């Protein structure tokens, strides 16, 4: 078998796109881990057998599981007696845990003696738990950013009459993404728009709402990362007015392209931004669709402002990302 030099191997099942993105980015930005996506949930299938064998051969110092899935139990069982330690990487914020009903899993994981390292993407959750539980660490999300000045954003340079608004989220996230308010806001717009979706209309209830509100939408369904990136390049404005979030890679991926995103205060990737960015892009009351509508209209009518905000956000996120990578490297060395 081939050999990798990685001392930390991370796994996450395919159903958690945000956690997978975090762990893939961590691999690229720190160079200290190797990430694998488990595509099958079959506990007796060839994929899991391959990875059990792989870990026994490579003998990493630590195996970290992203989020939680019952299939990880197989790895615990089959790797018992090996020197490899185990960790979890939990990305949900406390609010997200409650809204998404994840408290049963979290409460079990923090007490599980097989898990030596508990890594949290939410700083506050890590801080609080570390006062009571051993080996709890804050492992921040990191981003892969284009090199400074390497490629100029072509945002707003397209000639077209239709404004493209994105509302991207996975089915697991519907509860906390504030979708109904966003749909109500979009339905009230007096401009020529198309709402880009990645599967929302596959849900019969949201499909009914989309149709009842006469929303013009295009649903691409589940997309490969390459296709998702191509579609993102066409977007003029993003909507992520969530009730709870950990980091929000969707927002980050818009920012990287210089595309402004309307968010709530609950989106951590928007924290530490300048007052001007917050005033224009952050909604005070996410449960007020009129406020969301007002922000959309103001931005859509002002291409210059959108371009300016996009550039400012990219510059700010660049500085923050350097610090995040440094923190992540520190933590990873600590646990290796």
């Amino acid at each position, binding site marked *: *078998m*081939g050999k*990798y030099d990685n001392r930390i191997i991370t796994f996450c099942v395919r159903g958690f796109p945000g956690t*997978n993105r975090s762990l*893939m980015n961590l691999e690229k930005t720190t160079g200290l881990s190797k*990430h*694998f*996506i488990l*595509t099958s949930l079959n506990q007796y*299938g*060839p*994929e899991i*057998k*391959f990875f059990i*064998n*792989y870990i026994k*051969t490579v003998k990493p110092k630590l195996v970290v599981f992203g989020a939680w899935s019952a299939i990880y139990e197989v790895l615990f069982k089959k790797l018992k007696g090996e020197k490899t330690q185990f960790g979890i990487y939990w990305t949900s914020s406390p609010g997200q845990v409650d809204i998404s009903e994840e408290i049963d899993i979290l409460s079990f994981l923090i007490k599980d003696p097989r898990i030596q390292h508990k890594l949290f993407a939410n700083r506050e959750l890590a801080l609080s738990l570390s006062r009571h539980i051993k080996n709890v660490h804050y492992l921040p999300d990191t981003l892969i950013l284009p090199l400074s000045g390497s490629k100029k954003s072509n945002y707003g340079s397209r000639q077209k009459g239709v404004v493209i608004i994105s509302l991207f989220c996975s089915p697991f996230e519907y509860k906390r993404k504030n979708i109904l308010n966003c749909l109500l806001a979009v339905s009230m717009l007096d401009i020529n728009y198309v709402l880009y979706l990645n599967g929302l209309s596959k849900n019969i209830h949201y499909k009914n709402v989309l149709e009842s509100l006469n929303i013009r939408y295009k649903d691409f369904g589940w997309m490969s990362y390459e296709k998702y990136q191509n579609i993102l390049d066409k977007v003029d404005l993003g909507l992520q007015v969530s009730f709870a979030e950990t980091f929000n890679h969707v927002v980050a991926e818009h920012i990287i392209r210089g595309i402004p995103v309307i968010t709530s205060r609950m989106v951590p990737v928007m924290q530490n931004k300048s007052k001007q960015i917050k005033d224009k892009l952050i909604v005070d009351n996410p449960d007020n669709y009129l406020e969301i509508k007002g922000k959309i209209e103001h931005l859509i009518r002002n291409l210059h402002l959108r371009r300016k905000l996009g550039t400012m956000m990219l510059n700010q996120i660049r500085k923050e990302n350097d610090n995040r990578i440094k923190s992540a490297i520190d933590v990873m060395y600590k646990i290796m």
Partner: protein
Amino acid sequence: MSIVKRCTIPKIDFDQLYVVNEEISYREIEGQILLLRPDDHFLYTVNGSGKFIWLEIVKRKPISTIAKNLAKKFNVSEEKAAKDVLKFVSELEKKEIIVKAKRR
């Protein structure tokens, strides 16, 4: 005015041997070949005729022999088998899963 284009037809070396890139991890599990490339996050699964070709490559057989054996095994013409082998080998080579073996 006529434009004459020069075409170069890629030369196929049927005696070529291939070896698995040493960076690749692979295993045969439950009748499937599972491959892992260093930069990928997913496993590749190879089965059916692909698995047969893979095992022949691992046994260090040249393209011509693999094509003959494939034709025999799957009861197809040697011409079709050769096309399938070349297509599969070129895909694996493009993904750097296999590399040309050095001639002695």
